[in-house]
């Protein structure tokens, strides 16, 4: 399977992590230094790549690990 098609199987759990912490996207954007638009792209699984610096900043702000933030969905779930 081409790498591009695998992008669709990576799910970002930003919504759930924000809800657990009672934090808004705007507040996270302030803490991380990334625009709300870009965080929204990430939250809605429309991102195709993430910088290590963004990932590190989000994990620091939410107190989580990359594995908590990003999960790979099974092939059936993605299709």
């Amino acid at each position, binding site marked *: 399977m081409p790498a591009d098609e695998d992008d669709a199987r990576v799910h970002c759990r930003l919504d759930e992590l924000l809800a657990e912490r009672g934090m808004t996207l705007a507040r996270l954007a302030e803490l991380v230094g990334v625009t709300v638009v870009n965080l929204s792209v990430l939250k809605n699984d429309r991102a195709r*790549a993430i910088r290590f610096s963004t990932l590190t900043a989000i994990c620091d702000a939410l107190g989580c690990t990359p594995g908590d933030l990003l999960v790979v969905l099974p092939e059936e779930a993605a299709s």
Partner: protein
Amino acid sequence: MTQRWLSDPRPDFVVLALAGGLAVVAGIVAIVRELARILPNRDVPVRVDLDGVAHELVLNRTVAAEATEAVVRVSGLEAAPFALVLAAAVLPPVTTLVVAACFALLGWSFYRGEFFGRGNLVAVNVAAAVLVAASLLIPSLQGTAASSALASAGAGTGQAVVLGLDMRLLLAGFLLGAVGYAFQRGSRLKRDTEGLV
């Protein structure tokens, strides 16, 4: 205000698009003019190099000059020399037209904020390929057409095919080819960074 106007590249893109558009119109006019001069096959002007032959002229009875090329007028050319003369005359304006159209397209795309689109890449590569081809075809066709027209008029040099190379067109083509490669890399970079957060 002035500084902002100077730093805004969009007027440059408009100028590029307009200059390209004007050059396209000029190219079409030149093609029509050449066709009108040659198609009747009467007194067709053929430019001939006078290399290796001394042709001294006296201008104003005092100034000495030397002619390096002449325009020979021939009528009733046969099919093959006529086609060569026609192609040699039409090819330069056609080259100008195609390259100018590519530049006009690029200027318009840049103005709309599209830099690394597929259309721009094709435009740059087409302009580069046309310039490289023209660098060989234009001088070769002109030389061969002149030789053929002279032979048809009974003053042939005995050289059926003349090969030539226009270094300026060739270098311009290579330069645009390098720009095309940069566009290709830019396009790849853009694709790689789409959706990057």
